[in-house]
């Protein structure tokens, strides 16, 4: 029985935390958030140099061979810093190829993903909020795919898209492939840029066992989103606590007001227990596959809601500065709204969780 982090895991988190504290402090985050660039190449390079590209990629393919728990812990730190960029898509693309790729596909792509030489991402969603592999309509025939994929994270920066296809298949489509058209999406959370990807007779290569992998990849996405949301929620709480201890009104810091103190205590009791929930979802993905699908749905729904709540309450505690664009919390609030609906919203995952329990 060991439901805690190892020293290596703590070190991993500290390393990423330190990197982001140095390379992506709030001022830099605002620049990227406001900027026109689809990808901040420097920050991306830095993350890749840390080895984040191959965290869960097997060692034989140049990765660190770690587990979903470790990937989730990394995503927690990214969420803490509201780190911009398509890391979620890249990490999940690696998972997809690990799970579904042939040896040749793995050898071709995983080392490049691990090293950060290629950026990959998932193209799962279809118009109408369709995230579930069983409902995909993009059609593959004779090695060519037709369809429209939405909300592709870092779509325009990616070298490789893993495209969800009818029957739950997964197809590899490379940048520059014939008939693939990208359209940038004007999104709420500018730290995670999305694109629409239209495919018309585009050459593609099916993953060998994509259909078997797709649901697992979706579950992994839910684990990582809940980790991101936990990181964001706990950082929101910290920001609120720091603000309350520093902001003075009526001659004392507002932390002296019992009403504020109790709001913070309530917020803490909403947020902190959720840490164990995302840990468990990731651990179940690694070690308890029979519980994984439901645990991931439950964690995503619960933790994302806590993040929205925490960011909203924190913004309110901030008062005026909480409702400005130049304030920091707006970025976390928008990240929370993104996490709440990306890969399916809270209500749909709760209904799935009920069905998966045969309720």
């Amino acid at each position, binding site marked *: 029985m060991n439901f805690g982090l190892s020293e290596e895991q703590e070190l991993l988190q500290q390393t990423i935390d330190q990197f982001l504290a140095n390379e992506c402090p709030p001022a830099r985050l605002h620049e990227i958030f406001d900027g026109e660039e689809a990808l901040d190449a420097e920050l991306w390079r830095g993350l890749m140099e840390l080895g984040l590209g191959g965290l869960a990629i097997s060692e034989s393919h140049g990765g660190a061979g770690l587990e979903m728990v470790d990937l989730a812990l990394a995503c927690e730190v990214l969420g803490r810093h509201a780190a911009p960029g398509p890391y979620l898509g890249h990490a999940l693309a690696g998972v997809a190829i690990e799970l579904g790729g042939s040896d040749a596909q793995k050898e071709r792509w995983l080392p490049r993903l691990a090293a950060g030489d290629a950026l990959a991402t998932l193209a799962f969603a279809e118009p109408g*909020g369709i995230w579930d592999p069983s409902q995909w309509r993009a059609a593959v025939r004779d090695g060519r795919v037709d369809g429209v994929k939405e*909300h592709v994270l870092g779509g325009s920066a990616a070298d490789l898209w893993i495209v969800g296809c009818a029957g739950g298949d997964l197809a590899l489509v490379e940048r520059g492939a014939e008939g693939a058209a990208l359209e940038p*999406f*004007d*999104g*709420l*959370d*500018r730290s995670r840029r*999305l694109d629409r990807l239209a495919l018309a007779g585009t050459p593609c290569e099916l993953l060998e066992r994509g259909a078997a992998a797709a649901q697992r990849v979706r579950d992994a996405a839910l684990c990582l989103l809940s980790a991101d949301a936990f990181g964001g929620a706990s950082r929101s709480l910290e920001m609120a606590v720091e603000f309350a201890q520093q*902001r*003075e*009104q*009526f*001659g*004392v810091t507002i932390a*002296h*007001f019992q*009403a*504020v103190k109790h709001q913070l205590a309530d917020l803490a009791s909403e947020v902190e227990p959720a840490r164990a929930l995302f840990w468990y979802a990731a651990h179940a993905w690694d070690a308890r596959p029979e519980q994984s699908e439901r645990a991931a749905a439950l964690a995503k729904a619960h933790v994302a809601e806590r993040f929205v709540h925490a960011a*909203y309450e924190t*913004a*309110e505690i901030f*008062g*005026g500065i*909480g*409702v*400005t*664009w*130049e*304030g920091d919390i*707006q970025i976390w*609030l928008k990240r929370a*709204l*993104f996490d*709440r*609906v*990306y890969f399916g*919203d*809270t*209500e*749909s995952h709760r209904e799935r969780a009920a069905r998966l329990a045969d309720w």
Partner: protein
Amino acid sequence: MDLRYGPEYERFRQEVREFLAETWPLSGEEAKLERVQQSARFRKRAIARGYLARAVPRAYGGSEQPPDVLRASIIREEFARAGAPLDVGAPAAQLIPTLVAHGTEEQKRAYLPGTVTGELLWCQGYSEPGAGSDLASVQTRAELVDGEWVIHGQKIWTSYAHWAEMIYMLVRTEPAAAGKHAGLSYLLVDMQQPGIDVRPLKSLNGDSHFNEVFFDGARAPADRIVGRRGQGWNVSRSTLQAERNAVATADTTLKQFSELLELAKSTRRNGRPAIEDPAVRQRLVEIEGYVTSHEYSSHRQLTCAARGESPGLIGTMNKLVGTDIATRMARLGLEISAEGALDAPYHHAEMLTGGSGEANPVARFLHSLSIRAGGGTSNIQRNIIGERGLGLPRDFAVQKRKAPA
């Protein structure tokens, strides 16, 4: 108990309708004027008929009508229905009763006529960085130099500062006075002068409806103080008092609820309109319970005002109740819109603060925070309800402040 206005008032309503049918919108050449000019011309005609600026004496451009909340309510209803300009809103609306009560004859003659028509645009300089709910902690100072006030300091959350001609503001004129409420003065200052720098603040929704205003040697003539020098706190309080006594309406809440309903009808979830989802229906009716309670409570308050009675407890809670309902509605709207939350709502935001256009549920959700932040936080409102409404004692923290330092 009767929610009808009665025959006398229905005749009045008819009269207002006829006036509006003839007068608004403007026609011919006047219809080509800028919106501000159109509104000003229309307001002059409405004032002449006794419909607007009812509490302002005729000598200063008002219509000087006896108080009658029912007529006022009919005017508000009918003008809103016709889309016609009502009395000028905040921040000028707060200045008007202050000038009427505390202004000098010269000040009233100089400023009231243009203010009531909306030709003279104002902004309000109360809040300062770091002050938040503690409005009295004003740092901006004004010194009398060669018969002019010279102003240094900074104001924040100043709506309309980028297009206002003048600002009414609290400045510290007697820095030696004991206690932070003492030593403030209420000053009227021209915005178009070298010592003033306005920087827009972008809201989290992407629109810019408030500003920071920097004063670096801005000037105002010595006679621009309203009320006595050093008495600015009380002068500004009388304004807030007037504001608090105004009858609250549930108009905004009702409008937002009908938008939410429309959203639930027009958004499809799981292959059917969201409004057919039993969970959504339950939540909508739950919210409607709050909305209609708020609506009928405003009728109650209107009746109290007409009778000259205090509305009691309910009178202290309009702001908190209104913002809490707004958050509930915003929250449900967000859920109904589901994936819509990925979409940038920034181009929809202006309409929430006066512009027109379709309501976007995400912009609405983000904007609900601005509503909560504006005009006193929810915690301040809870103090007011607890202390003035329920008669509970003051906080220790505030008591501590009040003790001589």
